[in-house]
Structure formats: C-alpha cells, structure tokens
C-alpha cells in the first residue's frame, strides 16, 4: 500500500451490473489496480442511461466527469447489456467522446462474444472475474 497519491490509468469509469456482489468484486479489483480515480456504479441499464443523460446536460463539466470506460454486464432484467449498448450508441455516441465499451460477463457462451463483435469491433469482451492482466489491456 502506497501512501503517496497513486497514479490512476483513467479518471472516470462506470460499472453496470444488476448484481451487487459483482459490482463489489469489480470495484475492489479496479481500486486495487488503480484503474480509475472515480468509479460510478449502476445496477440497471435504465438508471445508467439516465445517469449518463444527466451528465450531458452539464456542459463543459461533462468532459471532466464523463466515464472513459464502461463495464457492462449482459444478463440483466428489463434491459440487458446488448440493449443498453444499442441504446447508448444511438443516443450518446455522437454527443461526447466515445468511451471504451467493455462487456464484462460471466457468460462463456460463444454467441454472446460473436454478437458483441457484430455490434462493433471496438467492444472489448471479458469474462468474469476481472483480473489485473485484463485491466492492463484496456
């Protein structure tokens, strides 16, 4: 543990997962690896979209607080991860600097990875649990 202010890789990232245990684990791993100064946590796609929408209204400030990486779970009730990405790309992509989209799922189902690739080649597809090695590549 370093006493000195650690150097973070990113300023703002967001975790989106309906399972609080998952969010807890992911948050702790991000912290331990000094991945981001600020970590936003959302437990539903709907609230995440609202949260991001609110940021857009903040004008200049937005660029300082807007997340640079989005970690998105796939399997969520009401609106799943893919639906969130579709929605996000439609409503947010043109408006702010595009954050990195990372799908972080427990799914090892090949079709999910394929579907992510079909939406965009830039989407990073990761299997839980999150590790340092994975974070180094983002």
């Amino acid at each position, binding site marked *: 543990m370093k006493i000195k202010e650690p150097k973070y890789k990113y300023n703002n990232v967001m975790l989106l997962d309906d*399972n609080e245990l998952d969010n*807890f684990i992911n948050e*702790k791993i991000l912290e331990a690896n000094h991945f981001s100064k600020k970590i936003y946590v959302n437990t539903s796609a709907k609230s995440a979209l609202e949260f991001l929408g609110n940021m857009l209204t903040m004008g200049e400030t937005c660029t300082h607080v807007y997340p640079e990486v989005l970690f998105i779970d796939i399997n969520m*009730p009401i609106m799943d991860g893919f639906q969130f990405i579709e929605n996000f790309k439609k409503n947010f992509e043109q408006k702010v600097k595009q954050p990195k989209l990372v799908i972080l799922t427990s799914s090892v*189902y090949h079709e999910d990875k394929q579907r992510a690739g079909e939406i965009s080649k830039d989407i990073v597809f990761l299997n839980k*649990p999150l590790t340092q090695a994975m974070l180094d590549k983002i």
Partner: protein
Amino acid sequence: MTSVVERIPVKTGTPLNMNKTIKILHVEDLETDAELVKRELKKGKINFQGIWASNRAEYENALRDFDPDIVLCDHSLPSFTSTDALMILKESGKRIPFILVTATVSEEFVVAMMKEGIDDYILKDRLSRLPSAVLNALEKVSAEKDKEKFYNEIINQEKRFRALIENISEAIVVINADGKITYQSPSASRVLGFLPDETINRSIFSFFHPSDVEEAKLNFEEANRQPETPLWESFRVKHKNGNYVWVEGTITNLLQEESVNGFVINYRDITERKIAEQMLRDSEANLSTVFNNTDMAYVLVSKELNIVSFNHRATGVYLEQTGKKLKEGTILLDYIPVEHQAFMTDVVNNVLAEGVKEGFEKSYPAVNGSLIWYEVCILPVFDEAQNILGIIVSTEDITERKNTELEREKMTTDLIQHNKNLEQFAYIISHNLRSPVANIIGLSNMIQTMPDMSEADFDRCMDGLVLSVKKLDDTIIDLNYILQMRREINEKKEVVRFSALVKDIRTSISNLIEKENITMKTSFLEVNEFFTIKSYLNSIFYNLISNSIKYRNPDKLCIIEIESKLKGNKLCLIFRDNGLGIDMGAHRDKIFGLYKKFHTHIEGKGMGLYMVKTQVEILGGTINVQSKVNEGTQFTIEFPL
C-alpha cells in the same frame, strides 16, 4: 436371212416377182451341164444372177462373197461331193435352199441327202422341173424363216412375261373353278414359303386362317358372279413355318380367258402394316384408357381458349371447383372461379406467348367447406412446324400431399422452436452456473491477493462466497427439477376437477390471501373436469395464481379471475388479474423465458412462467398472454380434448 424373205414374198403357187433377181450359185464341174441349167432357168423365166463354181475353193469363196439366195449342186465333183457342199453350207450358218442337180443316183442316196437337209433334187435329164423347184425351195425356206421369227418373238414375249411375274414382289396364284391351285408365281413361294409342288392341285381354302375361310369363300363366290370386278380384302394365310401372314390383294375372274381358265389372285404380304395398325390401335386404346383413368385431370384447349377435349377426371375436378360440367366448345375461363380468372388468364397468355410450360399450386374451398389443393400445369401444344395449336391444362389434386407437407412444415417449425428452446435453456443454465462460479473465483482471488483489505470488505467477501455457493446450488436444484419434470410425462393421468384444484391451492396459501385481501372469482360451469396429469395442472394453476398475487398492483384491490370454457373441441382456461402487467412491446418474446424477470422489486427467480409454459406444452396445450402495464394480465391456455 431376212433380206431374202423381204425380197421374195411367199405366196404358194404364185410366180416370183420377176423384177427381183435371184442370186444362184451353181456348183458343176461340167461347163455343158452348167449351160444347160442356165438355159433351163431362163426358159422358166427366172430372173437370176448366176455364178458357177467348179471346185471346193470356188464354192467356198462364192458362198462368202457372192452371198447366193440358193445353191444348185451336182453330186459328183472332182475334189468334193454334194454331201461336202451341203456340210459347208450348213457350217456357214446360212439357211438358203440347197437343191441337188445330178445324174442318176440311188434312191437310198437321195433319202439320205433329204435327211441331211437338201431341199429338193433334180435329175439332169429332167431339168424342166428346175425353175419351179427353185421357186418352191425359196418359198419353203422363206416360210420357215417367218415361222422361226414368229416363234422367237413368242419365246421372247414369254420370257419377258415370266421375268416380270417372277421378279415382281406381288405374288400370283391361279386357281380353277373348283378353287384348286393351278399355278403359283415364284414370289408366292417367297411370301408363304410353300413351293409349287406343295400347293398345286390343293384347295386354296386350306391355306386360309380358319376364321377367315368363310369370308374368303364369299369373296370367291362374289368373283364368280361378277367376272369384271376384281375383289378381295385382307386375309390371314398360313405360312409354311406355321405362322399366319396377313395378305391383301385382288381376285380376278378369268374363267372365260381360254389361256387362263381360272381366277387370278394377286396378293402381297401386309403383315408388318397389319401389326403396325394393330399396335397403333392398341396404343390408342391404351392412351385413351390411361387418359381416362389417370388421377390427373386433363383439358385440351384451343389457342382461342375453347375446350377441345377433356378426360373423366377433369369433369370431376371442374365440377368440384365451380359446380359446372365441362362441355366441349365452351370457354375454359367459365370453369375457373371468378377470383382466379385474372391469374389464370395471365398464366395462359404467357404460355401461349413464350411456348413454355408453367405450373402453380392453388387451393380452392370445396363444396363441403374443406380446402382442396390443386397442382395446375399448363403446357403448350405444338404442330409439326412448332406453331402453338393450343394448351393442355393438367390439374392434380394434391390435397393429401399438401396437408402432409403443411404438417411436416409445422413439425419442422415445432422442432426448430424446440431446438431453440433447448439452446436457450443451455444458454441460461450456462450463464446461471457460470455467474456464481465467476464470483467465487473473483472473491477468492481478492482474499488471496489483498491481504490488507479492511475487515468490512473481508466480511463482504465471505458473505459473497456463501451467497454464490448457495446460488450455484439453487441453480443445480432448479435444473434438476426442470429435467425431472420433463421426464414425468409418463405419470398417470386422472380426472382433475378445477374447482377442487383451486380450493387446494387457496388452502395452501390462505395466509397470504387473507393478509393481502385477495379476491378470487372462479367460473367452471361450462367445464369443470379435465383428464390430465394432476401435478402439472396443479403447478400451472399455482404458478399463475401466485404470480398474480406477487405482481399485484399495490394501489388496487387484487382480483384474480379463473374461467373455463369449451371452444370447439378445445378446453380453454383463462386466468385474469388486475395487477402490474408486463410491457408487451418490450418483452413479448421473453415472457416465458427461463430466469426472465420483469419486475426487479419482487423476489423471484424468473422460473414460474417458464415452468407453466413447459408443462402446458407437455400436456399438448398452448399458452398465450395479453397484458397492459398497470391494467393487468390475462393468460389463455388451450388444451385439445
């Protein structure tokens, strides 16, 4: 020699034409005798040109160069005799009269010479007979030559006719008035195999096919009555090899012709033609049989779309379609249901324009209301010059095939759906197993790699581990339950009363019903029983009722209505509530999914509706849902009875 014949017209007893000069070769060694002969000829007013040969050489030269009309010859000559002279003449090939003019010879010698071929003989002391002897001899030879010429002509003619008869393929048989064969041409042997020896003098009727004999006799009698008219048709006649040959020909009555004195029958083998005709008749009969007995309806239509011809099946098919009976000469379109006429016109015009066949499948409601499927094929019909004469419209009832096809399509759809369900199941299970496992790995990693984490975090990690292991176990139990349920299809069926079923469920959740003030209305008047697997039906009712309670609208009094109905041959169960409802637009295809939840505030695994749907389907039924957010939800279940 023809020239002689021409110069000396032969008329017995009439003097020769005195203008004609007769060339006479006289063989005589004595000049005095030669002079005597000349004198006698002149005396006899014979106009002649004479040459005198006194030896063999002169005789031979004169025969060749002088070309005499007649030879007069002395018998005894110094170098040769009259016998030699006659031989020389014969060898020369000339047929001219040879008269022996000699002194006394023996009677035997004269007879011998006559046999050798002399035409006359004159004794030298009776020379006065010489002129008439010369003329007679010339006349005799000339007559002989005429006769010979006549014979030759006859022989040639006979040869020509024979060649003709023997070489024509038409066979000729001549029979007498009794019907016996008196002549058969060589071609007859070729046609029927019998040689003349085997047929001559046998009755011609013994050669006919037994069935044709009577007819042949009638023909024969007819020919007997009407000599001028050749008669005959085709008959079967026995061949030597035992087979019968079809022959056709004419019989001509030539009884009055002395040379024939019978009936001439000309005939030829027409077996091949007869066989071909028979085959054609057979094949036409076969075609007609096939045409009228096939399951295909055929209508032959002219270019102007007039019906030319149709088969039995077509009558039936068009009767089925429009209730009209096909009639030749009427318009095809009159037999097509009005709503299909435009389509049919298009297709037919295209076939006529392009000259290629077209086909389509069409369904028509039959008189009894069921749907009949037809496969229709329209083919162009061409003449030899490839001009389109018309079309053939073939129609086949393919209802059975089509139904099988549709059934197969449905089965395929069902299978695909089933497979999708399985995939979905596998997906969900993998996710739901994988998810707690990933958490266990994550948490244990944290405990391992973050020794200096706070106590609160550590406790949270431990709680998380316990929760994840529990979740893993739950999922495995669910999985086992679902698989178990799918196997229980063999469970015994029994009569289940809906009213009793609902009463049991109410009892089991009476606390909840009382606490939440739930109103349940049931209506099982129309039908209250169902022969089924009780545990499944119980599970279906229980899940739907408990869902209605779970997702009730907190602002309203919760009302659950359950109703049974008979719909045709189906049992219809309706579950209706006034609860929160589901957003159908967003979740229609997920409602019955495993581990799908539409409300986050309420405890639940998202298994209830998955189980309901699975059980309904195992019992052979279907389930549908209608819902509006904040208004309520209605599930409709249908079971075949």
